[in-house]
């Protein structure tokens, strides 16, 4: 689920923090910059693991702060393909089941990856798995708050950096309703269309107690 990523960055320490130890200031700055943020094509950054190398600090003309190039390793949430994860069902919609793991919410299980046959109950806004046994058909409701075990099948990174002035002009000429849609920078697509991958089975619920 978590990986260690080696990164490099230049950290700026303002003069009023010069009395603190450099390592501490740098760790704090890096955490302030990266924690709980998604880095494009890397993943969701959790916290600093360690600093591997500190280069010389420079002070540039016109700015009293010191700039230090730092090589460090950061703990990043980036599940690998086909990894099994356990999450909680946050909501259901026509697009599928939305799952959350507490610190990361943009996981969706599309309708085609649900245990077949499944149908969307409009009245209760939940997906239902029509489970057939010898006795007859049972309906397993994917209720909100239920634990669900799923496999990661795809991930998408969207670049949400601010755009330059040329595209800003283009967007104002369009309908004003098309304001920037808040796109999640990192989304995971899951699948539960395999045996055992349900949170509603008694067996799986017991395992996680």
């Amino acid at each position, binding site marked *: 689920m978590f990986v260690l*990523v*080696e990164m490099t960055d230049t950290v700026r320490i303002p003069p009023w923090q010069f009395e603190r130890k450099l390592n501490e200031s740098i760790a704090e700055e890096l955490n*302030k910059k990266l924690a709980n943020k998604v880095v494009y094509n890397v993943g969701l950054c959790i916290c600093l693991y360690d600093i591997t190398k500190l280069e010389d600090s420079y002070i540039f003309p016109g700015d009293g702060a010191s700039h230090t190039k730092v090589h460090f390793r950061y703990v990043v949430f980036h599940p690998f393909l086909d990894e099994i994860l356990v999450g909680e069902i946050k909501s259901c919609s026509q697009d599928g089941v939305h799952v959350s793991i507490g610190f990361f919410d943009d996981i969706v299980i599309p309708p085609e990856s649900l245990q077949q046959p499944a149908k969307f109950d409009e009245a209760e806004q939940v997906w239902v798995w029509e489970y057939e046994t010898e006795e007859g058909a049972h309906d397993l409701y994917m209720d909100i708050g239920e634990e669900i075990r799923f496999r990661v099948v795809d991930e998408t990174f969207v670049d949400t950096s601010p755009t330059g002035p040329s595209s800003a002009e283009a967007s104002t000429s369009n309908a004003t309703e098309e304001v920037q849609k808040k796109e999640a920078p990192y989304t995971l697509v899951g699948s539960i269309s395999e045996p055992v991958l349900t949170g509603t089975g008694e067996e799986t619920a017991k395992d996680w107690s």
Partner: protein
Amino acid sequence: GAGWGGIVRLLLVRAAGPRCVCVWGLFIGPALCVEKRLCGPELSALLPCWHRCGVQGDGVCHVLRPSVLRKDANAALLSNFEVFQLLTDLKQQRKESGKSKQSSGQQNLNTIMYETLKYISKTPCRYQSPETVREFLIAMKGHKLTKAEKLQLLNHRPVTAVEIQLMVEESEERLTEEQIESLLQTVASILPGDPEEQQRDSAMETEGRGSQ
């Protein structure tokens, strides 16, 4: 004043050399272009780049993509237990250092630490220790599993054969039934599970034996 003259001279001198540009195409000068095309502080005060970079008024480019250079995106896989240890230690450290450094900038770190700890604490890794993890990996050497598969076994502590089949690719071809059984035995014996559950299971076992 003198400061501005100095900066202008800087620009003129460097203009002759190789052109290094900020990600938005603005000249920043080779002295600042340390391969990362970072928008330099002395220039950000002069050029529109300051605005485009979403700068927070301190003259430094804050957009993540251009400035943070990723050297190795997959240096190592971390188990849930390692992250759990790291975050618990960090929480302890921050508590000990007192509330003096709790600035608004730390809110993101607090949020992510709290949520991640909350999630990881519900997984089997909360009963693990460095010794059990080491023992587990040594025991796993004989089973010929990939790193990712061993990691999943460590993080999830499967107790049924079906779970093993989920985590191990092509398990029907690679593992016989006895091997799956022995794998389950290894996992159950080395990796500690919920102590209440284990007490219940051992109580049931002794009952069973007693009745025989």
